[in-house]
């Protein structure tokens, strides 16, 4: 089978076609069942984290080591000489691209990963999060977890809860799931943090069902995936936050009428939007979801760096 992802930059989930997403998920499944440690033997990959993101970095770096590749890089942009000397991102990428086979980049500015592709001289770039913009491998691991738990990516009812305005994970996941058939979306958030219009417009344009709901109880018996996100305290005034906090916290009692196949996902870190008691229910899947990040990242790294599998 031709590998359409070979030598491709992985910048935005919007740029991956449905068949490419399916290829990554298939590869993730194979790697989870049967690890192939020598797939990237002799490759060197740079892990350039211009802002700290411990979980994402460790997940990427574990994926690299599990594939047998070597890694160079830095975990936090504040302590690198490049920043202290005032080197531009474009110059940094030009130099590093001549050392390695691929660059994983995390950067606080939106569009930085796309900029990196213009200076990497063909060395593939993996976006590990650029500001509030894109974090495509998070979406890949979300899709992989949904596929794994529901055995499909279509005909699903998905509820998204919390900060739907600024949460890039829910935007990207909605865009990705909209590429599959007959999915229905239920959005639950404080008024100040509703899903942005461009997402709603995209769903409308594709004639995909979506609905705003007041609370989780309203739709708990209808949904297959409950995707929780953190309501960020700094985004709301104190009264709004107090209301949102009590309204959108998931308790075990909320799950009373849940479908058997329901799975609760969360991009983590969790603060207090999921009660700790929920962890003990069969619905809690967020830690397994985080673990799946390794396989999804192994899959995308190997597909971009090896033409034939």
């Amino acid at each position, binding site marked *: 089978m031709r590998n359409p992802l070979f030598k491709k930059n992985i910048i935005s989930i919007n740029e991956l076609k449905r068949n490419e997403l399916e290829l990554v998920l298939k590869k993730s499944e194979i790697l989870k069942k049967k690890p192939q440690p020598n797939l990237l033997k002799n490759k060197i990959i740079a892990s350039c984290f211009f802002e700290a993101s411990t979980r994402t970095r460790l997940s990427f770096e574990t994926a690299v080591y599990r594939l047998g590749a070597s890694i160079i890089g830095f975990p936090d942009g504040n302590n690198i000489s490049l920043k202290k000397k005032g080197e531009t*991102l474009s110059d940094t990428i030009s130099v590093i691209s001549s050392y390695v086979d691929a660059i994983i980049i995390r*950067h606080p*500015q*939106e*569009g930085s990963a796309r*900029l990196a592709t213009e200076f990497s001289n063909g060395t593939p770039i993996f976006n590990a999060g650029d*500001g509030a*913009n894109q974090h495509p491998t998070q979406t890949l691991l979300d899709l992989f977890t949904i596929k794994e738990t529901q055995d499909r990516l279509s005909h699903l009812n998905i509820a998204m809860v919390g900060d739907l305005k600024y949460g890039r994970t829910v935007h990207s996941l909605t865009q990705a799931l909209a590429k599959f058939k007959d999915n229905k979306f239920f959005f639950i958030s404080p008024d100040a943090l509703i899903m942005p219009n461009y997402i709603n*417009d995209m769903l409308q344009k594709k004639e995909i069902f979506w609905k705003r709901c007041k609370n989780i109880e309203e739709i708990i018996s209808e949904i297959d995936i409950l995707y929780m996100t953190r309501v960020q305290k700094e985004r709301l005034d104190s009264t709004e936050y107090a209301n949102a906090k009590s309204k959108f916290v998931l308790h075990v009692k909320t799950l009373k009428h849940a479908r058997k196949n329901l799975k609760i996902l969360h991009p983590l870190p969790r603060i207090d939007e999921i009660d700790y008691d929920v962890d003990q229910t069969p619905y809690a899947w967020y830690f397994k979801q985080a673990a799946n990040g390794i396989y999804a990242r192994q899959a995308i790294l190997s597909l971009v760096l090896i033409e034939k599998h």
Partner: protein
Amino acid sequence: MQINKLQVEAIRSGSVIDHIPAHIGFKLLSLFRFTETEKRITIGLNLPSKKLGKKDIIKIENTFLSDDQINQLAIYAPHATVNYINEYNLVGKTFPTLPKKIDRILICPNSNCVSHHNFITSSFIFKKNKFSNMDLKCKYCEKEFPKNIVLSY
């Protein structure tokens, strides 16, 4: 009786950008860096216009604008005409049409967009929104903005 009186000095050869909305002429000069040349430029502001009421006009000697430059004018001056002059005669006339993308001219309103840094040039593509109006999408941060927001930034 028709009065054929030139409002701005005629040029022997070059381009005349006519029917620029009033008060936009100076903006075009700086945004499109028309002034970064040794060529002689004449500009007329607030001239009477049947089409627009008032208009600005720019004449650039010995310079012929590329199709890309002309089309990029459409974002600020959608009704502009560009006339080509040779030996004081009109030898060609063209009208800007909105291009698919616009580079360098605009600034991304997203203050955290990487295009504000690193000495790179901005790049936007035009996208029709659900009301059939034009939005501009930044190539880098992927944010979409109504055209008027980007133009007034």
